[in-house]
Structures are given as C-alpha cells and as structure tokens.
C-alpha cells in the first residue's frame, strides 16, 4: 500500500503541482508563501490520500486546502494582504501577454478584496461553476455570484485601455522593468 499510495501521490504531484502553485501564487502574490501553501496542501493530501482517491476528490481536496490555507493565513495579523512589490514582476514576459497587460492584470487582481480574488481564481483559473466555487469556499452561491460580479466590475475598470496605460507606466517605472 505504501508504494501504491506513493506512486499515485507522486503521479499526482508531477501532474498538478504546477497548477496548485500557480493557484496559490494568484491568491497570495508571493512565490515563497505560495510554495508554503502548496507544501502544506500536498502534505495534507498525502495523509488523506486513500479517502480522497476513493472519493475521486483528490483535486478538490488539494485545491480547497490551498485556498483554505490562504484564508487562514490571511486572518493572521502578521500576514495580512499587502500591496504588490513582488520581485517576480521584474521578470520579462516571454510570450502571450505583454508586460503591460501582465502588469495591469496583476495590479488589478491584487487590488481585489481577498474574497473576490478567490472567487475569480476558482471560477476563471480553475473554471469552476458557481456551485463548485461555493462548495470550495463554504459560502452561498449568491455570495459567489455577487463577489464575481463585483470582482469583474473592478477588473473591467482597472483594465480599461486608458487606465491600463497609466498603470503600466507607473508599474514599470517602479519595478524598473527593462524593455
């Protein structure tokens, strides 16, 4: 059984660790905290593996643990959400989103209230339904809908073309991104 659990867990980690890390990163904006969250989630997942595998709930459990761990950390006064000053933003974009788009989206995402950000990440990064998101977060579907609506309103406003130019200029200057 040990090898069975180990093999299955290892396969899952290989397949999913990156996505869990990126989820945590989108939630907290700090790669070190994100790594802590993922390590915690995976350790819990390993211990819970037989039941989660039996219930075909491995993904849900890992995802919820990441989100809930972030919730727990957010409640600690010494780990409150803080403005973005992440060195990761200094890295040049390689493809897809331009640096400007990336910075603008990141800034807009960071400006969301933590609850709104969680909803956005679960719904638009993980692609969960309203009901699934409500289950993950332990809130009502109505709250999910209202938070999503509010979050999208903020994002639309922040990502509007005129505002985006201003934002990215400021951000690049602050971060010293080489273009």
């Amino acid at each position, binding site marked *: *059984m*040990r*090898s*069975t*659990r*180990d093999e299955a*867990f*290892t396969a899952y*980690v*290989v397949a999913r*660790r*990156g996505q869990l*890390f*990126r*989820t945590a*990163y*989108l939630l907290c904006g700090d*790669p070190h905290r*994100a*790594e802590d969250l993922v*390590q915690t989630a*995976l*350790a*819990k*997942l*390993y*211990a*819970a*593996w*037989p*039941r*989660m595998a*039996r*219930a075909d*709930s491995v993904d849900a*459990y890992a995802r919820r*643990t990441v989100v809930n761990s972030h919730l727990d950390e957010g409640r600690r006064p010494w780990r409150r959400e803080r403005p973005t000053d992440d060195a*990761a933003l200094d*890295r040049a*974009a*390689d493809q*897809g*989103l331009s640096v400007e*788009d*990336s910075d603008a*989206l990141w800034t807009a*995402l960071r400006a969301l209230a933590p609850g709104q950000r969680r909803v*956005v*990440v679960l719904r*638009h*990064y993980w*692609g969960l*339904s*309203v009901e699934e998101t409500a289950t993950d977060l332990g809130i009502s579907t109505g709250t999910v*809908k209202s938070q*999503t609506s509010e979050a*999208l309103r903020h*994002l*639309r406003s922040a*990502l509007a073309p005129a505002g985006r130019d201003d934002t990215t200029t400021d951000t690049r200057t602050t971060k010293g991104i080489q273009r």
Partner: protein
Amino acid sequence: MTSHEQHEQHELPGLDDRLHELAERAPAPSTAVGDDLQRGRRRLRRQRLTVGGAALATVLVVGAGAAVGPGMVDRAQSPDVAGGTDGPNPTPSETPRAQKMMQIEVGDPRPVPWGTPLDRNPIGTGPDHDATLVAWQEVLAEHVDPQWEHLVRRDGSNANQQSTAGSGQVLALGSRYGWQNPGQDGLGMLQIAVNRGWREAMHPCHDSGPDEGWQCEAAEAPEATEAWVAERDGQLSVAVEQADDGEVVVLTADPLFGNNSRIPVDELGLSAEALLQAAADPRLSLPADYESAPLLDAAEFEQAGRDLLGPAGADLRVRDASLPQSLHFSGAWRDGRRVLGELSWEAVATYGVTGELVCQREIYVRCEARTVDGVDVLVGEVQQQWGGGWEVTYAGPVYEVQVAFEPKDGQLPIERGYAFVVDPRWQPEG
C-alpha cells in the same frame, strides 16, 4: 451556464486565458517530488494516533450514546438491521453468517485526542531496515569521514528511513545522516538512496535533463555503468549505476539538514570524487527481498464484504481497485433506483508495523477507539463535505482493514464494520 454567468463572461472576455498566462509566469521553485512525499509521510506520521496502551489509558471513557455520531448506527439504537430510526428499512432479514458476525464483543467508546505526538515508524514503510542503514553509514564513513569527526552516528534518536517497497521487493531505500562541523552550531546532512534502477532513482541529472538550478556533468566511477555529478548552491549530488547489479546509488551532501535544523554548516568539504568513490562501493546494495505479507484471497475478501457488510439480497455493484497486498472494493448499495449508500472495504499490508491509526482533522469530525473482540479499532466520523458516514479501521499485525460507509437514503449498523475488520481471515499467518 446561467444567463448571469453568460453575462459575466461576456463582460470580460478572455479573462480565463489571461489569468492562465499570468499564472504561467509564476516563478515556480524547483521542488523534488520526493520532498513532497517526505513531507506527506511526516504529516501522516504525526496524524496517526496511538490506539491502545498508554496513550489511551489517560483519556476519559464516555457513554456509548454520546460517542456515536451521525451515520454511525449503534447496536443499542438499531439492533441488527439497516435503515436507522427515520429512514427506510430495506433489509428485513440477515444471513446466518451476518447474524453470527454480529455476536462480537464491542467495548465502550474512548475518545481519541487530535494530534498525539508519535515517534514510531510510519505504517506501511515495509520492513525496518535499521541494520542496513547503520551498515551503510559505516561504509560511507570509511570513504568520507574515517575518523567520524562529522557524521552523526545513526541511533534511535535520529534514525530516519525513506523506502519504497512493493510485492516483497525493496525498490528504494535511503536515509539522511547528520553532518556536523566541530565548533559550528549548524547541521548538514549526507543523504543516501539506493535504488533498484534509474526508474526508482531521483537525481537532478537523469531523464529529462538537469532540474532547474542544477549543474550536471557526466562522470566516471569505479565499476560504474553510468555516473553523474550535480551541483546547486552548495549542494552536491552524485548518482552511480553500479555495474554488477544495476542499482543506482545517489549520495547528496547538503549543508542544511532541512528536517532537523534551520542552521546550515559552512560546508561539508566533500569532493565529487570522494562521493563518486563512495557511491560505487558494492557494499551499498539493497537488502534482499523481504518476506511479504501472505496474499489474501481477493475473491474471498470481496464475497465476504458482500455477505457481511451489505444486507441480504442487496444490490451491491462493486468496483474492484485491488492490487496484490492492497485489496479495495467499493460499490453503491441500491434498493431499486434508490442509492442507500456507498460502501467500501479494503485490506492493506502493514508489514508488521501496527498500533497507530489515522485521525485526520481535515477528514473526520472526530474519532473514537473501541476494543472489539480484544483488539483496538478506530472509528472515524467523516465530515459531510467528504460524504459523511463512518470509517472503521483495524491495523492488524498483517493487514490494515478498513470499512467505510457513506449513507445516502439508508444506514448501515456499524457493528458490521467492526465484525468485518477484526475477522481473523484478514490476518493470515505466513
């Protein structure tokens, strides 16, 4: 998708893709899967609760009524049929075997505290290889620390073991030995892993090229088919495939023994050549195949589950997810079109390591222990988000046996779970 959701999507098109692109830029650290595995094992070890003996001698005994939770139908409340007090009763009769199995002696429940600290070996690691790991440390010392000025001798206070085993074979075995520098507070480590082959080995230079941050070089070692040296930020790791048996020895020197210290030593002062020489030593070889647990008869185990757990005549559609020494059956228990519950039963070889059971806060509402026919059984009330119901587990000397029931429209007397898990047929003698 609701109209509201469609509205949301249309209001901010492309958000999903943009989030994915943004997330892809997260600077993911290079973390070995093996590290996640070790952390998981440590957590599992911490969460296992000592059942029986001294740990439970100090807890209070509470009444049976107070200790039985939702979905956990007690004999006193529902003598011998399924259905519960307010649900349907689809099982008016029991088989003689089931009736017989109900004659078990069940002791009073004992609450089990969360997070009892444990120092024992984790369950399911295969045999204890302490003697082998002590001998390997002696071999390494001959090569890299003949005066024992740095290596911390392996003993009961610092012993650790990482192993992968299956079907009577040790596939990988290793340990982390402490490394101290005189006059320094920190603790480094020299880690060894001997693997059946490259498939089991974890080394940053093999397979898909260098892992992030590692510098790799092909190397040579005595009597080696293949050898690699990897370096990263003060860490030095060599891998040697020994020509005689194809086993791959991985030695990693790290200034920080991450599990046991926050303070690194300045350096280990070990050269790649010295580690290659050590890794090529033929005495670093996996122990012989161990005597694995006798295999259970999977068909008998499945049928027993049908006979003893499910009610007579129940429609139990069983899924089989069994492996040798790890039997697992599960199925939906139906009455016509109604699903009365999800039932599963499994047996997992324990390799003789017993006495510790899981009570994990993320899974259970709470746990309790009961003495059933003279042995200690753990009962967990499962959180609703994972389906609710109960799990009954007995970690026997040969197999750990568990029954789980997630109620839908029906209930199942928990005594059936007790009777099944302590059935002596699941603890065969060699």
